[in-house]
C-alpha cells in the first residue's frame, strides 16, 4: 500500500480522533468498575460499624474483628479452608505437571493427544454444579458399592484436585510449548541423561509455569464454593460454607468482618504470588 506523506499525516490526525472513546462510553466504563466494587466496599464499610442491627452508621469500631478471633467455629473453618487449598494444590501441581510433560514431550499419536486434551478440558468447560454433582454421585455410588466412604475432607480434596489438575496442566503445557526444543536438545548433545535433563534443564525452565499453575490452583480452591458444598461432610466446613450457612441462620456483623478479611487475604495472596511468579521470568 502506497501513501503520500501528506496523506499519512492527515490519517494520523484522523486516527487520533477516532481512537478516543466517546465520553458517554467512558462514563459507562467507569460506572461499570464502580458497580463491581460498590458491594464489596459496602461490606467493608459495615464491618467497621459499631451497630449490631441495621445499616445506620453508629460509629467506627474494630469489635467485630476482635470477636472473630475468639470464634472457635470460624477459626476451625479457616484452618479447614487453608488445609484443603494447600493439600489439593500440592497434589494437583505434581499430577498436572506430570500430565503436561508426559503429554507435551512424547511422540504420541494424534488421536491419543486429542482424547487426552479433550478430557483435560472437561472440568474447564463444564458448569461447576454439574462437576460437583458428578463427584457427589461417584462418591455415593462408591459408598453404596464399597461402603465405608464418608463425605468429608478426603472427598473434598479429591474433588478439588480433579478440577485443579486440568488448570495446572494447561498452564504448564503452554509454558512447555513455548519453550521449544533447542535447550533440551543442547542438554542431550552435552550427554545429559533423561533424568538429568528433566531435573536440571526442563524443570527449571518450566518452573515459572509450575508456580503460576500452582497459584491458579490455590486461588481456585479458595474461591470454590459449589464443589465444596456438594462434597463436604458435617466435619469439614470451610469459610465459604460457613458464610453461606450463616446467611440462612441470620447475619451478624462478624460475617462482614470475616468477608472483608477473606477478600483482603485473597487479594494480597494473588498479588504477592503474581510478583513471585513474574520475577524469575525477568532474570
Amino acid at each position: 500500500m502506497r501513501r503520500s506523506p501528506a496523506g499519512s499525516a492527515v490519517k494520523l490526525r484522523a486516527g487520533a480522533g477516532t481512537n478516543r472513546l466517546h465520553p458517554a462510553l467512558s462514563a459507562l466504563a467507569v460506572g461499570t468498575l464502580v458497580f463491581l466494587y460498590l458491594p464489596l466496599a459496602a461490606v467493608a464499610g459495615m464491618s467497621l460499624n459499631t451497630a449490631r442491627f441495621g445499616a445506620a452508621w453508629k460509629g467506627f469500631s474494630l469489635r467485630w474483628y476482635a470477636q472473630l478471633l475468639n470464634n472457635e467455629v470460624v477459626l476451625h473453618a479457616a484452618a479447614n479452608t487453608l488445609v484443603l487449598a494447600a493439600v489439593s494444590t500440592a497434589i494437583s501441581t505434581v499430577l498436572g505437571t506430570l500430565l503436561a510433560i508426559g503429554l507435551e514431550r512424547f511422540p504420541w499419536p494424534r488421536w491419543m493427544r486429542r482424547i487426552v486434551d479433550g478430557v483435560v478440558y472437561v472440568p474447564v468447560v463444564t458448569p461447576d454444579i454439574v462437576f460437583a454433582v458428578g463427584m457427589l454421585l461417584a462418591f455415593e455410588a462408591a459408598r453404596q458399592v464399597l461402603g465405608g466412604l464418608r463425605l468429608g475432607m478426603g472427598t473434598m480434596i479429591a474433588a478439588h484436585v480433579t478440577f485443579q489438575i486440568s488448570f495446572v496442566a494447561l498452564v504448564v503445557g503452554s509454558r512447555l510449548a513455548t519453550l521449544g526444543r533447542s535447550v533440551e536438545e543442547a542438554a542431550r548433545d552435552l550427554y545429559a541423561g533423561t533424568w538429568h535433563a528433566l531435573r536440571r534443564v526442563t524443570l527449571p525452565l518450566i518452573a515459572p509455569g509450575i508456580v503460576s499453575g500452582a497459584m491458579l490452583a490455590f486461588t481456585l480452591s479458595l474461591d470454590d464454593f459449589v464443589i465444596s458444598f456438594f462434597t463436604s461432610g458435617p466435619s469439614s466446613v470451610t469459610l465459604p460454607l460457613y458464610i453461606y450457612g450463616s446467611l440462612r441462620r441470620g447475619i451478624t456483623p462478624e460475617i462482614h468482618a470475616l468477608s472483608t478479611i477473606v477478600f483482603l487475604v485473597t487479594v494480597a495472596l494473588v498479588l504477592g504470588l503474581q510478583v513471585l511468579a513474574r520475577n524469575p521470568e525477568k532474570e
Partner: protein
Amino acid sequence: MNRLLVWYGELATTRKLTSRGLALLAVPLAWIILLLVAPLGAMMAWSAASRSASGDIEWTLSAANFLRLAGFDSFGWTRSYLVILGTTILVSAVTTIVTIALAYPLAFAIARRPPAHRYLWLALIIIPFCTNLVIRTYAWMLLLGSQMPPARLVQWLHFIGPSEALYPSRFAVYIGMVSNSLPFAVLPLYTNVERLDWAIVEASRDLYSGPVRTFMHGILPQTFPGLVTAIILTFIPAMGAFVIPDLLGGGKSWMLGNLIQHQFGVSRDFPFGAAVSLVLTFLTMIGLLVLRRSGDEVSIL
C-alpha cells in the same frame, strides 16, 4: 512397531519413549479417568435409577426421571419444571447480552490507556473475583437491602413499598449474574480490542458510516473470536448458576441449578437430581458446540 528416532536430541526408540511417557502419564490419567469419567458414568446410572417408596435406590433402567423433568408425573402434566428450564435459558441469555454490552466499552477504555497502565486496569477488574462467590453475592444482598441508598431511592419512587428490599427479585439476580461474569467477558474482548486495526475503523468513518455501521463492519469482525469466547465464558457458567438465584432471587427465579441443589439437599432424590444435571450438561454441551463452531476461541490462560 519399534522405530529408531531422534527425539529432543536423544537417540531413542518409540517403544522406549512410549513406556517412559506412559510412566509419567499413568498417575494423572488414572486419577482423571477415575474421578472425571467415572462420575459421568455414575450420573447416567443414577439418572436411570429410581427411588422406592421406602427411599431406597433401585438400580433400574427407566426414563421416568427425564419424563418428570418434562412435566409428566403420576398426577398428569405440569409445567413447573419446564418453567424452571425456560427461566434458566432466559436469565442466562439476558445476562450474556447485558454483560457483553457492558464489557465492550470497558475493554475499549482499558485498551485506550497508556500500555504501562493497562495491566493495572485489568487487575482492577479481576480483583473483585479473587474473593469468594458467596461473599460477592452476599455483598449484593447487603447493598440491595431495605435500608441502603439504592432501595431507599426505589422506595421513594414508589416502585417498591416502604421498608422493602430490592431482593429477592429477578432484577437482583441479573445484577448478581452480570457482575459475576463481567471479567470473563472483558478479558477475551480486551485481547482482541488491544490488537484492533484502527485503520479499518478510520476507513469506515471516512466513508461516512455512523457508529452502528462502524461497529458492525469495522469492529465486530475484528473482535469476533474474543466475542465468542466472552459469550462462552458468560453463558455456560450462567446456565449452571445456583448460588446467585438462591440468595438474590426468590422462588420465581429458580434455575436448573436450584432444582439440582434441592434434589441433593432437601428432597434427597438423587436419581432425579442426576437426571436434571445430565440435561444441564447436555444443554451446555450444545451451547458450546454451536458457539465453538461459529468462531475460534481466544485463550485467556
